[in-house]
């Protein structure tokens, strides 16, 4: 179905919008975003703020959301990490309708699974690096579990979104073109221009960190503190582990508890110096603490998915022993000239030509992803959660995610149960890669 036809469907939904108020409302509209007084960007935002509003829902309880598109382009909202029908998931490649400019629609769904999710636009940017995920359309989505037993205890929540702004395509030395940014922010502000996160000594703070960057992986550390990672992509990890810093690929989320046991004024910032210099940081301030914010520059980048996986075969996923159908996927790119970004391919073809055998409901599949390219790719599977079973040649079990950073020139594997019939989009979450063909749709038989 063409996007025009999809948009027409979205417009038809306007007439169906009930008069009763919805649980939530999203207004998509132009917005002047101010990272600092000297750094302003014209963008599109949800409800006049960047990041958008926190939408908090209860697992299993139906909600309705009115979405009004006041922008000049057809829009669509993807509910990232939820098990939703294709009509509401928010990807036109699956069959979700677009919302034409000036139109409104109401969607209803029953949120599942519980955990830290997010919502964002799922449109095409192409060469316009102000559109789609390059802009300000992203927000936190927190699905509180129906059963709260077994949840980690903490005193307060802090939600943080990492984002990059002012992108432009720059040729790189390896013959491809890469986005380059002017400004990097946490919760829409450069370091020194946002409100500090205020904490008290002895508190356990749950930090939910989202990387909403269109293309960039980020490492963040909190000077003087460590993170106990308890969930990745909103799913509890088998082995909560304490780490000095977090790494988040685009669209990944990390939930980590920080014990506030070092009174002072600290910086939570990007570990890499050039990104820190572009503004990615915020101040964490203890009650009654004074002085300039302190930053301790880490000297290395430390992150390994393996440390959060199951520690023994006994704790590994029971489904790991069932029959698994392998789907080989090879990622590479086609050179388009040193002045052009390359075209991305899965099994030698770009979207929409990529083909795959239909999935059978209830069966378990293993995606064997051979990344022949020189780039790491944050792959995302819509409407499902997968179990990470191999990262770059290292086997693991028990880690459930919906985004995984596939290392360059290595093979990684994930497994998932085909338990949500309907078209299912699979793609690299880098906006420039998905715009240039790095997508495919799994269809159910």
């Amino acid at each position, binding site marked *: 179905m063409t996007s025009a036809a999809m948009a027409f469907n979205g417009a038809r939904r306007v007439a169906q919008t009930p008069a009763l108020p919805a649980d939530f409302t999203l207004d998509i509209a132009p917005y002047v975003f101010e990272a600092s007084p000297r750094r302003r960007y014209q963008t599109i935002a949800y409800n006049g703020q960047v990041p958008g509003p926190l939408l908090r829902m209860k697992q299993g309880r139906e909600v309705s959301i009115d979405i009004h598109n006041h922008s000049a382009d057809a829009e669509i909202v993807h509910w990232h990490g939820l098990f939703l029908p294709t009509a509401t998931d928010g990807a036109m490649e699956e069959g979700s309708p677009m919302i034409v400019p000036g139109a409104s629609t109401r969607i209803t769904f029953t949120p599942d699974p519980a955990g830290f999710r997010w919502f964002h636009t799922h449109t095409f940017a192409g060469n316009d690096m102000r559109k789609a995920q390059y802009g300000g359309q992203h927000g936190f989505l927190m699905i509180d579990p129906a059963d709260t037993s077994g949840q980690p205890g903490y005193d307060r929540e802090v939600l943080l979104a990492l984002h990059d702004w002012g992108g*432009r395509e*720059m*040729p790189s*030395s*390896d*013959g491809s073109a890469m986005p*380059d940014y*002017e400004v990097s922010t946490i919760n829409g502000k450069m370091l020194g221009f946002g409100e500090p996160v205020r904490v008290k000594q002895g508190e356990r703070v749950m930090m939910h960190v989202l990387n909403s960057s269109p293309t960039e992986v980020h490492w963040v550390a909190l000077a003087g503190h460590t993170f106990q990672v308890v969930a990745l992509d909103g799913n509890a990890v088998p082995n909560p582990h304490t780490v000095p810093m977090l790494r988040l690929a685009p669209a990944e989320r990390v939930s980590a508890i920080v014990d506030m046991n070092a009174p002072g004024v600290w910086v939570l910032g990007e*570990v*890499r*110096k*050039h990104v820190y210099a572009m503004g990615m940081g915020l101040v964490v301030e203890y009650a009654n603490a004074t002085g300039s914010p302190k930053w301790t*520059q*880490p*000297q*290395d*980048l430390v992150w390994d998915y393996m440390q959060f996986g199951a520690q023994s075969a006994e704790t590994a996923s029971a489904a790991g022993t069932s029959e698994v159908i392998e789907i080989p996927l090879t990622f590479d790119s086609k*050179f*388009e*000239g*040193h*002045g*052009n970004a390359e075209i991305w391919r899965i099994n030698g073809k770009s979207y929409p030509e990529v083909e795959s055998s239909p999935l059978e409901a209830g069966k378990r599949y293993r995606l064997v992803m051979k990344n022949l390219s020189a780039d790491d790719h944050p792959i995302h599977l819509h409407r499902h959660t997968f179990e990470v079973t191999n990262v770059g040649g290292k086997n693991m079990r028990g880690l459930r995610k919906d985004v995984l950073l596939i290392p360059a020139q290595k093979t990684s594997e994930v497994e998932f149960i085909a338990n949500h019939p309907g078209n299912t989009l699979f793609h690299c979450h880098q906006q420039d890669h998905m715009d240039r063909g790095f997508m495919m749709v799994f269809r159910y038989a």
Partner: protein
Amino acid sequence: MWVYVMATMLLLFPLSTRAQGNYEIQVYGADTVEPKNLMVELHSNFTPEGQKYVIDGVYPTNHQEHETLELTEGLNSWSEIGFYVFTSEQAGHGVQWVGDHIRPRVRVPDSWHWKVGVSLSTEVGYQRAVYSPDTWTWEIRPIVDKTIGRWYFAVNPALERTWHGPDVKQGIGFAPGATFTYDVTKQVNLGLEYYADYGRITSPDTLHNQQQQIFAVTNLNVSPKWEINIGVGVGPTAATDHLIVKGILGRRFDWGHHSAVD
């Protein structure tokens, strides 16, 4: 007889001294070497068919092999400085030091977001009179380049000035260079390079007396660390060496200390 030959040659090649410049045959791109990086290039140019006579004490270019060592150090993200050592090898003369040049260059920073790459190079140096009667020269070279898909274009409308030598009163000369290339594959690129010396900018020489060279070239992008350029050039005018084979082999050395967080 010799007087007659020499008079004829001077009529045919009044600007032949400029043809001695085949030590570094390259159209510059606007990019500069990154800071804490050293680019080492060896320019090897052979003239199978060139000037065959000694004119004004200048050795003939025919069958001269020129080896030029070019060292370029990046100063910051928008400037560099280059240094040249010119040598010549020829039957009867052996390997000879020809001269040295120094070449600072600045460019428009990426943060200015210009649609084209722009830089400005200036080159000052000395060459021995037996290889060029103009022993002290100065050049200022604007550089504009642009990559569009698989195509690359660069223009170097260089201006030259002699500080010491016969052409010191000539004023400013115009010696443009240009190239366009096409990426056949990620590693192989083919194209043409054009070099000219029109003489005095206010009063260009006749076409017959101008230097005009066209090279068919290939650039091999085997690695970001290496630069390989090979070309064959013809000079159709009387004042130009008629056939030149050139090669550039460059290696980038990164001597900065880089940690993972830099």
